[in-house]
């Protein structure tokens, strides 16, 4: 499937991290969802990066 172009059309945002940004977008009426994020792998960044790489070949399903 071809990627949707960045410019033109709607911008619908998934926010990961600072809630401040999602709050700002929501106040402006921009469709946004905030992920309840936790540091993965018990807060070990190296292990988290390894885990993410092993997940690369598994596309994230939207449904």
């Amino acid at each position, binding site marked *: 499937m071809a990627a*949707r172009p*960045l*410019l033109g059309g709607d911008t*619908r945002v*998934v926010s990961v991290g600072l809630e401040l*940004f999602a709050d700002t977008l929501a106040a402006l009426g921009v469709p946004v969802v905030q992920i309840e994020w936790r540091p993965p792998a018990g*807060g070990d960044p190296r292990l*988290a990066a390894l885990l993410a790489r092993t997940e690369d070949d598994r596309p994230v*399903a939207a*449904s």
Partner: protein
Amino acid sequence: MPLWNFVRKSFYQDSVTLMRLTRDMEAVSDVTRAAVMMGTPQNLALLKDAGLLTAEGEAAGPTDLVVAVAAGTRAAAEAARAAAETALTARRAATASGAAARPRSLAGALRALPGATLALISVPGAYAAAEARKALVAGLHVMLFSDNVPLDDEVALKRLARERGLFLMGPDCGTAIVNGVPLGFANAVPRGRIGVAAASGTGLQAVTCHIAAAGEGISQAIGVGGRDLSDEVGGLMMEPALAALAADPATAVICVLGKAPGRTTAKSLRARLDRLGKPCVAYFLGDPAAGTAPTLEDAALAAVALARGTTHVPAEFTQPPEAVTRLVERAANRLGPGQRFVRGVYCGGTLAYEAIGLLKACLADVAPGVTGGGSGHRVVDLGEDVFTVGRPHPMIDGTVRREWIEREGGDPETAVLLLDLVLGYGAHGDPAGEILPAIRNARRAAAAAGRGLAVVASVCGTAGDPQGLAAQTAALEAAGVIVLPSNAQAARLAARVVVSRR
């Protein structure tokens, strides 16, 4: 000083929430110091250095919340903890009532928001690349707001984005305005016909604000990342950003911004700009000769002129020469003979480097870097990665900036304190109010030592910003700060003050 630590296991909170909790706790009477941090090894080291760590805190892990309080009594410490708990509970309740339970994963988020187009990622730098990779693989464009993202990760992510026809905006450039939507730090500017592609966060903000002030608007503003034009990254995102703006029917004029490109990247960029097919203005920090505009303000005004079919003639100041002379005299008034240097305390990286370039044009002994080194003229950028580990950006939290303003203002060799104020979405609700106490303290300390202290600033913002350009400017001016219409003009005035005393 009695000291207590409280730990809540597996309780992650983002850095802005932690900052707010710290403030709530410090407002409790009889509390002398408070800190709320996640228990990462770096944060525990910070707490230890600050003398705020006990054995209980020391045992915390990276996903545990550590509350540290130095208070006069146990009751005050408990009251501070209660204040933090109340604030957290209120936050949870607001979230729960405002929306369904939040998704805990990207897959869950995509179910909650079908047709999502973009991920805005602002987790700590060590985790940011992994989150960005997941979003790209899921077919989302990414704005990577996080600082402290390793260069290798940036290159790999941008290659992955290119392969998939996606944008990876950022890092080290936490701003964009896409289809009128402000992402990260961005200002309230009208839609219009000027498109911006920027390898510079505050550069993008300054230029879009100047364009708005001149009565034009922004079609799209794409922040490609502060390192994108280095030879290591090679303009991996500048290229598709320029192609997208060239193809965008709403964009009539293109404005390109960034640090001076690497040697190889400069060649390919020049060739790309030559075949854009649209009028273009370019500003490169540290090497204005490589572009077509000498400052950010000139880049904006040149783009406006191109859109209107007129010509922009750069000028050093907006005000007439005699008005500038009066400002210089006012600033230099009551400075002592030993006060020789300009000291900048900034939160915008591009603005800091622009100021350094302009100071160097008329002063010797200007420190080249922005991390506070050098004994002569210097400009520190508190948004630099070294200052933002485990802390909110200084545009959100003025704590570190207040310390630097008092330190630089207290140096008997400082003649002019040079400041930037950045407004907009995502920034602190009252940036002037955040730093004015420190400016007043620095002034008082100088007066007590028989000296004056000039304070010169510029405000990057618009009338539509939540903080209001006029209100912020008025608050600074009421405190005796000389406010110029652009960062370039503020830096030039600061240099003139120092030169006038020779």
